[in-house]
């Protein structure tokens, strides 16, 4: 397992903790164009994802990249997560991974 470049699980609120670092999150796609995607985080905040999104995106999209600001990510990896995704569970995962169980995550 490659641990040289870990990416932290974040929701919208947690993004600010990792500015300049690598993060991963899942957003619900609100809108997209050539160079970016506007998404809603699992805690209902707006996130701008920059880079080269796939030609077509599904409702939910996982992005991995560098947190540029408290509401934007420059994404390197884009993965369509389909149309059915449990945002509530993901949001709880983000909270646990950055809180009580932080030590279990890289």
């Amino acid at each position, binding site marked *: 397992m490659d641990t040289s470049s870990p990416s932290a699980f974040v929701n919208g609120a947690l993004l600010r903790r990792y500015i300049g670092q690598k993060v991963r999150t899942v957003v619900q796609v609100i809108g997209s164009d050539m160079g970016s995607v506007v998404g809603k985080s699992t805690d209902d905040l707006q996130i701008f994802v920059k880079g080269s999104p796939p030609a077509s995106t599904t409702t939910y999209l996982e992005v991995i990249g560098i947190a540029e600001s408290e509401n934007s990510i420059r994404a390197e990896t884009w993965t369509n997560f389909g149309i059915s995704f*449990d945002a*509530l*569970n993901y949001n*709880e995962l983000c909270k*646990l991974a950055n809180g*009580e169980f932080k030590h279990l995550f890289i």
Partner: protein
Amino acid sequence: MQTSVTPDAISAVLSNPSFDSSSDRPDIVVQVVDLKPIGNRYTFSANDGKTKVKAMFTASLTPEIISGNIQNLGLIRLLDFTVNDISSKSTKYFLVNKCEAVAPALDSEIDLESKSEEEGGEFKRQKLEHSPVNDVKTDVSTGITLKPKQEFVAKSASQIISEQRGNAAPAARMAMTRRVHPLVSLNPYQGSWTIKVRVTNKGPMRNYRNARGEGCVFNVELTDEEGTQIQATMFNDAARKFYDRFQLGKVYFISRGSLKLANKQFKTVQNDYEMTLNENSEVEEASNEEMFVPETKFNFVPIEELGLYVNQKELIDLIGVVQSVSPTISIRRRTDNEMIPKRDITLADESKKTVVVSLWNDLATGIGQELLDMADKSPVIAIKSLKVGDFQGVSLSTISRSNVVINPESPEAKKLKSWYDSEGKETSMSSIGSGMSPSAKNGAWSMYTDRVLLSHITSNPSLGEEKPAFFSTRGYISFIKPDQTMWYQACKTCNKKVTEAIDAGYWCEGCQKKDEECSLRYIMVVKVSDSTGEAWFSSFNDEAEKIIGCSADELNKLRSEGGEVNEFQTKLKEATWSSHIFRISVTQNEYNGEKRQRVTVKGVAPVDFAAETRLLLQDISKKSK
């Protein structure tokens, strides 16, 4: 009920330093003003309409205030109190040891001074002369700094009482413009308030009998513009007075109720307080008011997630399209042998699942009948406050305060209706309960109740000794022995085992007849593993079909085909290392004179990862508490 204070009582007391709690002291009624908590006790100003003095309730009276018996702007009769000096100043304060509530909160602070000025001072004088304080054997007049005595004009006692009633507090009340308080701001310490609320639930009138006698009581659930809710209870006269006035769904102005801390055990709405209305409370329908008060607030749970709530204390709200409505039947209630009407309705939602809701009592006969009449139009209904039970897997029941709304005007209802009209009515639906258990009689259950790990079963060899124990568990099929007897030849009519007849065909002992054909039905054991251990599960036809992925007849055909690529082996391999949720029973069987634990699969369901994750999150939050 006394509606006013004892005028000039305070100045009379203050002017007489030797005043003590002697028995001949008359009752003094004052108004509580500026009631405030200080530590574990309360301070206030005692107001007699002309003079105010700082006062404090001893800590022993704190419960009276918390319960709402003593209210700000309410009237109290001082039964035992002392007059003390505030050391730093030359003023005095009352320390109240004992008092009784005379009236709940008035709408405003009583001010006899300004009133009497309007009326030329005459009215005030009479009350002074006739007030009980004047009977005190002290020189009252010396304590009254504001009133010259010479204006006295005689009036009868009854005239005075009627003037006091008619003029003092109510007059002040009428002069006030009605200000509506948000429900969230109400508390027991606050005096006058008026709320504007919708009756979002109304209970039946109940008769009760206790040590203090018998009476009747009913309650309503009130919701204001902000969606805050409170329960209001009325007893006896108040119950009789307001039972017909309160109508479900209508909007009312209410004032002069009292608040107390809600009894958590019986709490039905999210509010720390509950309200009691007495016969003097004011309840006025706001019929001409253009206003918005939200209809019943719903928090809908999709049918497919109901499993999470089975046998939990939490009540749920549901919205669904009516699929069918049964006639009413009468059920004898076990506790008192009373016959209760019940009607079952089946609802469906976008999760393509259906669930049965039992309507009881008035809901069965009233709104239930309405639903029966319109069932062919597939109405959408929303139900507030349902109990989730495990009968037939998952089942719902109304309770006395459940509330049914037909074709509600809400976005959820519109969305559901348009889904149903466009595709839902053509879709095949499955019951939320049936996907899990073929028969309800052997342990009604849900996939989310009694969840255990395998080690719980294997480490408790005495499980199921007295009676079968039921659990649900999540695990992987880890091994299916290919050379075991996997099926038996079964009668196509009754599924019982048949024997091959001498000539041809199969003989069924149960049906007492011969058939040309038989069908194969599974009876097999599979090994199930999870992170804590492994166990052998016995599985019958329907459950085994779900585990293997095909019928016993089909599997038999694959086995008989043989060949280089053995499809039979492939089928078993595919079934292995897939995970399922199992409902199981644990029993003890005699085997060669030895007792052995036997685990039988009662149901198999695919893993719903989102629901399982929620279950795990629940466990994590329980553990961290």
